[in-house]
């Protein structure tokens, strides 16, 4: 799965996710990626989110929208909301994976509960940062 979230100069947020699914999947199984609010969500008033991981858990929890709602209704910071959903809600249910998120102020989060996650970010200074492992 791959994904991106962005904030442009006009303050508009966007999120996108694309995937080849799961090796050996059967029965026309669909994961969270095409389910808006589960694997992908964007709202200019809160944040943009793209997820990766065991899709069934992300669907059941509505992960991407849940993070936006925690920011919106509970006033949580993006990082706190993203951490809560990945490290508490997804993990307690037995799911694994991660997400990337950016908010309307340019704050971002990249939590995951797997061994690694290919990820990176770039902001106004034009310096790309790429990471793969837990460090």
């Amino acid at each position, binding site marked *: *799965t*791959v994904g*991106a979230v*962005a*904030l*442009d*100069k006009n303050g*508009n*947020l*966007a*999120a*996108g*996710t*694309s*995937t*080849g*699914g*799961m*090796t*050996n*999947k*059967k029965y*026309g*199984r*669909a994961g969270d*990626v*095409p*389910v*808006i609010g589960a*694997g*992908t*969500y*964007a*709202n*200019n008033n809160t944040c943009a989110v793209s997820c*990766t991981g065991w*899709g*069934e858990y992300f669907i059941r929890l509505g992960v991407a929208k849940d993070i936006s709602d925690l920011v919106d209704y509970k006033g949580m910071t993006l990082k706190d909301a993203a951490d809560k959903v990945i490290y508490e809600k997804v993990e307690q249910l037995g799911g*694994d*994976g991660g997400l*990337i998120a*950016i908010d309307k102020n*340019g704050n*971002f989060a990249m939590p995951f509960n*797997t*061994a*690694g*996650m*290919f*990820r*990176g*970010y*770039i*902001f*106004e200074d*034009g310096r*790309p940062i*790429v990471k*793969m*492992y837990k460090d």
Partner: protein
Amino acid sequence: VKYGLVIHGGAGTIEKDKMPPEIEAQYEEKLNEALLAGYKILSDGGSSLDAVEKVINILEDSPLFNAGKGAVFAHNGINELDASIMDGNTHNAGAVARLTHIKNPISLARMVMEKSEHVFLIGDGAEQFAVQNGVELVDQNYFYTDSRWNALQRALKKEMESKSQTVLYPALSDEKYG
């Protein structure tokens, strides 16, 4: 004015001691390429939607990632692709699933968002919509990679072995496919 971009290329069993340095370098190079391409759009005043689509196109075109060219195989030996995109300004959204002939699913998801009255199209209908809007279908061979095919063969073999064991020990099987 703040602007920026965050990307991912999937989460899983990615461990430093098991990653060959040359493969690690390939991932790093491709992720950097994607970030810089998205950055250029944003720094030039382009939209977040354009940046997101461009970045994902680059990752879809790379066999390194499980999307587009690098998609994994389903049980039937076919690559099935899904994608979605959302505009935070308008709350418009587009999604596609079970595609088998679309090179860049994220672009089709955006097309669904912008050129249809629907949010979510699947399978043959989604591809019919793509053709009607000028998207060229690709042969399924485009998505073939040795590594993904071999991964499916390993999974099938493991499944066969697991099935023969679970006749006696049903609890041994913990594979889930949705």
